[in-house]
């Protein structure tokens, strides 16, 4: 019996996980959220922005991680607009363009923000896997990398970009990252060379990689995964998909932990039976 349980068909595990996630999504329960210090640091950094400060938001992710990163992206974009910052949107990923369009449609337009005045969409520029030619280019002359906005307006005729030449005119860069190029490359090129403050928004899986940069001060804040997005929504007091999906995520994670514990208990009893 113990051996049969220890070699449980994986389809049964899949089924249990589906049931737990479905329960979490269908019957969400409010959970008490504690704000992690890296998320609070990101929130504090953005809170210090003054009206008219220029902020670059780089959407370096694709649809595969959209459920994980989009809640944080929307909450942070909303926070930037609440602080009346001038938002410059761009992406190093071709898949990032629709993510950006979705963020504009979900946040900028409902908040009544005007294109080229309150925010500007610079679009996509491919800089290779390291993104170096684009990031280095932005450091010396943004116009040389993006001569036109994504909507076709020439750089010089965009009111928001008046007086913006390079990273020296940018107050903060926020990178929503699911891989390379992304926040790692911004740290290497934009922070190390031009000392531009950077906030990273990453998937939960890649977050451990960023902790050394957070401790060294190269990252001013770190928002990781759906949980980070939910915490940010809580901080700006604007509930969205992050908070809605948190219970489902919690149930799934607890289920996986229970599987691990069950497997170890079964192994313990199987070992005792064998030694007898």
């Amino acid at each position, binding site marked *: 019996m113990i051996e049969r349980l220890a070699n449980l068909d994986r389809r049964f595990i899949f089924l249990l996980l589906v049931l737990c996630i479905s329960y979490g999504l269908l019957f969400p329960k409010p959970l008490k959220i504690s704000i992690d210090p890296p998320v609070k640091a990101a929130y504090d950094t953005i809170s210090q922005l003054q009206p008219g400060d220029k902020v670059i938001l780089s959407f370096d992710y694709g649809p595969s991680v*959209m459920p994980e990163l989009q809640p944080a992206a929307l909450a942070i974009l909303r926070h930037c607009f609440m602080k009346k910052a001038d938002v410059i949107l761009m992406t190093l990923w071709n898949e990032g363009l629709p993510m950006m369009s979705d963020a504009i449609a979900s946040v900028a337009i409902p908040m009544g923000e005007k294109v080229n005045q309150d925010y500007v969409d610079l679009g996509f520029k491919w800089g290779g896997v390291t993104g170096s030619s684009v990031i280095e280019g932005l450091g010396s002359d943004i116009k040389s990398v993006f001569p036109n906005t994504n909507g076709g307006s020439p750089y010089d005729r965009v009111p928001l970009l008046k007086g913006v030449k390079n990273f020296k005119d940018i107050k903060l860069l926020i990178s929503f990252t699911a891989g390379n190029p992304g926040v790692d490359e911004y740290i290497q090129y934009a922070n190390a060379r031009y000392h531009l403050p950077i906030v990273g928004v990453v998937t939960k899986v890649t977050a451990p990689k960023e902790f050394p940069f957070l401790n060294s001060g190269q990252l001013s804040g770190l928002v990781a995964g759906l949980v980070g997005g939910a915490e940010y929504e809580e901080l700006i007091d604007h509930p969205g998909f992050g908070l809605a999906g948190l219970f489902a995520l919690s149930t799934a994670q607890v289920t*996986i932990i229970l599987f691990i514990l069950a497997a170890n208990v079964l192994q313990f009893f199987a070992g005792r039976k064998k030694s007898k």
Partner: protein
Amino acid sequence: MRRQLPLLVLFFSGMTMLVDYFFPETPLIHGTREVFLNWGRIALTFAMILGVMNLLISNLKKVFLQQSGWMYNMILLLSFGITFWYSVPFHFVKSGEYFSMIKGTDAGSTGFNIFMNVYTPLSSTMFSLVAFFIASAAFRAFRAKNIEATLLLGSAILVMLGSIPLGNSLYDRFHLATWFGSHNLSWVANFIQDVPMSASQRAINLGVAVGIISMSMKILLGIDRSYFGEGES
């Protein structure tokens, strides 16, 4: 000459970037660097076109020769064609004193809808499958077989539970706070990530950085020519 010229270009462009990093105020070097960066971006754009051409040619070949699985190549070509047809066209409209470009990838367009309603759910589904394989693999492989594995297991469970609010609720419910001097489970998870994990990650990063410096110098000086399709000289 076929070998010397690319080596010379590589050495000159690489050294320009390197010198500019340390002497950014030198106009000649900075100007040359700007030119190289522009060339880099243009070359990368053409590389993307080359990639698309390669994809099309190899798939068309398989369809015409009816090689095994040619139906999948056909589906890829059809999907590519439909997405391209709806996403690429653009036109200009006058808004105020400016002209705006309306593209097939803008929000609300057919190209955008194809992306958001077909590609996005498919892509998210593929990524979500990882959770199921993690659950299955964790059940089979994550066992406390020795001290090291037990330590790994313990810290993993603490980090996993500390990362979700439900973990903190369970922690409070069973009054476990006294174990960690009244800190909550998030604090414990953050401590593990902040101190032991961050230290080891930093060590790995430093090792990788030293490796990259050595590799870059070998490439810049022409010692490693593997990118030519040959081994070290």
